[in-house]
């Protein structure tokens, strides 16, 4: 059984007990424990189930590479699935639950998959659930969904807060092990702005566990001294619990700091996302140990040798009393020695190499540990945890020569440098044949904006695996970085000293001659249940690319992203393909290094401050008067103003009726207002609009259409000529910024010699539409301007003063009623709006919202950008040919509108549509049915609905739509199938439903 030892544990404080629960069971650990060490101390070796076969899973590693021990942490809204117990620091009250099992962790129905495992090989889903087609939706998918998925998703809003911070650095050092600390000190001494990111809570990495000396000091003493030196440097920032998540273009980096996960403090930020720009990055990210592929290597109790060592030395926790060590390198012996030192039994070290004569094997022998070379584990005994191993020859086929009882197995297949960050931005790798590992290729480094290398790698991450090599390599790396930054190195290279190690012997399959049956029990990816046999099957089925094999077998696609399994997997693939490992290559390393929280990515941008809100000067009035708002771009506009329990439809009905019969007021401040000025402004607007704007007389307004260069209608609005050189262009609410940018694009990049200036004045003015038969009376009551028919005719505008407020009055109408749009300075918008309501009270002045505006424009057959247009519609489709100048030689979109498809007479054209049942409204977007089917067997169509409303004015449903040959088919009835299976009939009519002669607006 796994247990807490009576002594030892550098990280824990035995005087401080910490209570926590696992699956509701109350357990205790010590301050300084990780959840993994605390679970092991409580003999909780079984912590989860695997994804596919639901096999029992125990802790394998001691760091972020852990593939098995994932739990759901926390309760209620704070529950978070798939958290690695190895990187979770223990705190009082921690609550964890195991995942991926039903009904219980100990007894799991899904484990039946295990017994049919040979029927579930790689690609099983792809091969099996194809036919018959309908079965996928109704049978296969529901069943697979039930059993798939790792942890459960939380159901409530995340109650925690998160924050983000920006940082800039000359050098970011990733990793606070001895290599990183040395580099930081050298760079700090050279005066650089340095940021050091360490993902764990501790400095020094794993070297204090592995031992040795640096410059004659024990490693921990050297770490303490170096930290003290760094603390004294103002130009150096040190962050623990802060993982580098990814490196992106031009030195952009993301750091992920876990502020309170180890000591929850509600209200305090939980995570902090660092957005960093680094001139140079030094990866001192160390290495991750590889497992060995022997039959039964996934049983709880089989762990990485380095992890077993960590638990004993750091936390005083043993995985078992009797541990067999199996290794292909000298480093594995450190675990045997550490276990022996802790008073535990190591029945044997099984070394796959033919001989082991280095300092560490000799030290093990001197301690009386039995060392067997040329040996392999050929079987692991036990159900839910290890009870013994069968030993055979590494060179053999798997015959058991001897059985050794044990309750843990420490495996070491060598170490893989953490090259993730080097690879994130395109750094290439080389295969180091002697050490059997991929390491960064300095000749093909990631580059910055200047095309020069902006990353270096030092220490174990660079393939320097012994302490002496680590320190020398770190010094070389930081020297190179300083040279790039124009600095010189003053510190000498530190001398690391640790026992020499003999080369490892690559072992990808154990035993070497294992047959299919044994290979089906050799796990590569523990979480996704990918075995040696699966990768070999993929190779036999023709998957030659490592990227394809990964996706076919799901090797390395689990939450650990193959940190443990990738190298072993691609070595197996390489062998199966008969191609050398470097030719097979690795899969792509992508950020983040380990998963980061969605909360950190969102930061403070959620809820009310998810995005900036734009409010008109009258916004508070709308709120106070019960407006129901709708988003239009970043604006919030009143959709309608329900009064006294009205539904939205009732409110819209009332607002339209009041406006049509007396007086309505609309806050039109959001409409874009772009001033275009200069000697060439008229010429410029003639290019921008389809009609002629240069001939517009001063004092007059004209409705204009704007097309993109490929001919499609992109915006519309009224243009007013202010003076000889100045035009004011109104745009749609959503189009203001886009159209201003569009103008600037053409001015700056095409007609840069034209003398034109543009300015977006949208927010400078509040604008009120005063609409209805009593509109003029209201303005006369406000007083200050002559707005009679004679003084201010339809499509005229004038400057003046209304109610003592400077005003520009445009006599334009989007409703078909007598209508004025009045622009006043934004600062006086609310004052003017309230003055209109006060003076208009006798006319029953009614504030109306965007829906009433829509209804009234549709009653008049006016198009709306975004309803009648969708980026594929040209003005000619909408009966707007009258707004296209025939005289102009050119305008944006003119040439495109001459293309064959644009002049095709069968393009759908705008018409009105009246349902035969006046109470039945056509659904927006409904299609008109035509006879026959198309090449895909779908029913043909001959038109679609673009706008549809209940018209209070006409007392019936009205709609607009685009219909094949529509204008010449007046009176014909079309059929519109609806999504609920009915068919609505509607007659093609003129799109102008109300006041066809336009008499009401022109009084």
């Amino acid at each position, binding site marked *: 059984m796994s247990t807490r030892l009576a002594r030892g544990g550098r990280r824990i404080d035995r005087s401080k007990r910490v209570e926590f629960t696992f699956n509701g069971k109350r357990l205790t650990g010590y301050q300084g424990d990780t959840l993994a060490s605390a679970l092991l101390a409580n003999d909780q070796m079984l912590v989860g189930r695997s994804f596919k076969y639901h096999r029992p899973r125990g802790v394998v590693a001691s760091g972020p590479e852990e593939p098995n021990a994932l739990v759901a942490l926390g309760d209620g809204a704070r529950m978070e699935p798939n958290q690695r117990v190895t990187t979770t620091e223990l705190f009082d009250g921690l609550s964890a639950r195991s995942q991926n099992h039903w009904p219980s962790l100990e007894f799991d129905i899904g484990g039946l998959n295990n017994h049919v495992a040979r029927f579930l090989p790689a690609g099983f889903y792809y091969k099996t659930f194809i036919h018959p087609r309908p079965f996928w939706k109704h049978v296969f998918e529901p069943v697979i969904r039930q059993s798939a998925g790792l942890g459960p998703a939380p159901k409530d809003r995340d109650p925690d807060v998160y924050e983000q911070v920006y940082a800039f650095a000359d050098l970011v050092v990733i990793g606070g092990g001895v290599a990183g600390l040395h580099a930081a000190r050298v760079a700090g001494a050279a005066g650089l702005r340095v940021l050091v990111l360490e993902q764990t809570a501790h400095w020094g990495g794993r070297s204090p566990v592995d031992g040795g000396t640096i410059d004659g000091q024990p490693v921990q003493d050297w770490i303490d001294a170096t930290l003290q030196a760094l603390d004294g440097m103002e130009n150096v920032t040190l962050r623990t619990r802060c993982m580098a998540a990814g490196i*992106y*273009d*031009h*030195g*952009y980096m993301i750091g992920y700091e876990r502020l309170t996960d180890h000591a929850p403090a509600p209200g305090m930020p939980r995570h902090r996302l660092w957005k960093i*720009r680094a001139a140079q990055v030094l990866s001192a990210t160390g290495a991750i140990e590889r497992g060995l592929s022997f039959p039964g290597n996934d049983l709880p109790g089989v762990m990485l040798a380095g992890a077993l060592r960590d638990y004993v030395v750091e936390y005083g926790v043993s995985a078992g009393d009797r541990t067999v060590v199996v290794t292909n390198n000298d480093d594995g012996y450190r675990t045997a020695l550490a276990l022996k030192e802790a008073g535990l039994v190591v029945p044997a070290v099984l070394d796959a190499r033919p001989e082991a004569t280095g300092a560490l094997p000799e030290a093990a022998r001197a301690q009386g540990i039995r060392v067997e070379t040329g040996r392999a584990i050929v079987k692991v005994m036990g159900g839910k945890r290890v009870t013994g191993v069968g030993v055979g020859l590494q060179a053999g086929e798997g015959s058991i020569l001897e059985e050794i009882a044990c309750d843990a197995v420490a495996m070491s297949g060598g170490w893989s440098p953490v090259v993730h960050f080097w690879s994130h931005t*395109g750094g290439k790798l080389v295969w180091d044949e002697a050490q059997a590992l991929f390491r960064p290729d300095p000749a093909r480094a990631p*580059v910055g*904006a*200047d*095309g020069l290398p902006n990353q270096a790698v030092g220490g174990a991450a660079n393939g320097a695996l012994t302490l002496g090599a680590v320190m020398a390599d770190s010094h070389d790396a930081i020297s190179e970085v300083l040279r790039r930054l124009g600095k010189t190195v003053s510190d000498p290279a530190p001398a690391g000293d640790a026992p020499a190690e003999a080369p490892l012997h690559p072992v990808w399959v154990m035993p070497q001659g294992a047959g299919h049956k044994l290979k089906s029990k050799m796990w590569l990816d523990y979480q996704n249940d990918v075995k040696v046999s699966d990768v070999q099957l993929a190779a036999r089925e023709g998957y030659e690319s490592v990227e394809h094999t990964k996706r076919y077998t799901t090797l390395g696609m689990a939450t650990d992203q193959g940190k443990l399994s990738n190298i072993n997997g691609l070595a197996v693939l390489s062998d199966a393909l008969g191609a050398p490992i470097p030719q097979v290559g690795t899969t792509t390393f992508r950020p983040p290094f380990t998963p980061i929280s969605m909360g950190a990515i969102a930061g403070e941008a959620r809820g009310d401050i998810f995005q900036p809100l734009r409010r008109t000067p009258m916004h508070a009035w709308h709120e106070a008067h019960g407006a129901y708002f709708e988003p239009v771009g970043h604006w919030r506009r009143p959709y309608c103003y329900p009064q006294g329990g009205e539904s939205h439809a009732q409110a819209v009905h009332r607002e339209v009726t009041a406006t049509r019969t007396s007086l309505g007021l609309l806050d039109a401040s959001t409409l874009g207002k772009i001033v275009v000025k200069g000697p060439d402004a008229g010429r410029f607007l003639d290019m921008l609009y389809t009609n002629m704007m240069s001939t517009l007389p001063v004092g007059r307004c004209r409705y204009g259409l704007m097309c993109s*260069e*490929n001919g499609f209608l992109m915006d519309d609005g009224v243009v007013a000529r202010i003076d000889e050189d100045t035009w004011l262009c109104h745009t749609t609410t959503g189009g203001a910024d886009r159209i201003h*940018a569009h103008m*600037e*694009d053409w001015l*700056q*990049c*095409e007609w*840069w010699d034209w003398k034109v200036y543009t300015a977006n004045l949208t927010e400078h003015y509040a604008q009120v539409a005063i609409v209805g038969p009593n509109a003029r009376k209201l303005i006369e009551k406000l007083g200050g301007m002559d707005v009679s028919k004679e003084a201010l005719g339809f499509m005229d505008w004038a400057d003046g003063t209304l109610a003592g407020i400077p005003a520009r009055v445009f006599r334009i109408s989007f409703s078909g009623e007598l209508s004025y749009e009045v622009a006043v300075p934004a600062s006086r918008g609310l004052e003017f709006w309230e003055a209109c309501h006060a003076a208009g009270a006798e006319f029953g002045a009614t504030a109306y919202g965007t829906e009433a505006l829509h209804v009234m424009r549709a009653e008049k057959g006016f198009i709306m950008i975004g309803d009648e247009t969708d980026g594929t519609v040209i003005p000619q489709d909408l009966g707007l040919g009258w707004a296209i100048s025939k005289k102009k*030689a*050119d305008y944006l979109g*003119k*040439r*495109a509108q*001459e*293309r064959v498809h644009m002049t095709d007479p069968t393009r759908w054209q705008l018409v009105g549509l009246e349902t035969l049942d006046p109470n039945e409204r056509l659904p927006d977007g409904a299609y008109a049915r035509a006879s026959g089917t198309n090449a895909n067997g779908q029913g043909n169509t001959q038109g679609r609905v673009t706008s549809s409303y209940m018209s209070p004015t006409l007392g019936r449903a009205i709609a607009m739509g685009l219909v094949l040959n529509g204008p010449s088919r007046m009176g014909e009835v079309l059929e519109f199938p609806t999504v609920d299976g009915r068919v609505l009939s509607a007659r093609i009519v003129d799109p102008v439903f109300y006041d066809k002669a336009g008499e009401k607006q022109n009084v």
Partner: protein
Amino acid sequence: MLILTCPYCGLAADETELSPGGEAHLKRFGPGSSDDAFTGYLFHRENPRGVHFERWRHSNGCGKWFLAARCTVTLEVFGTYPAQTTEPPAAILDAIRAKRPDWEGRA
């Protein structure tokens, strides 16, 4: 995330301050042009592996459009320059050739 220096305001701007505008130095074809010429102008774009010229706007900054010469493989930036030109300035071409001696020029 790229950093490009705006040639107008001189700021080294993060990509979040910028808006991309596609290929630079397109020649506009209007009414009277052939279908081929117009189609080429409107739809056909270079997609080179290597040196590329593109339009950017310092949209969350000074608002100006500028052009950038950039390597699509390494993201190396050879230079940025004002948009009021129909072809890359000599200094930009020199900078590219200094770094990419094999570059065959714009297609």
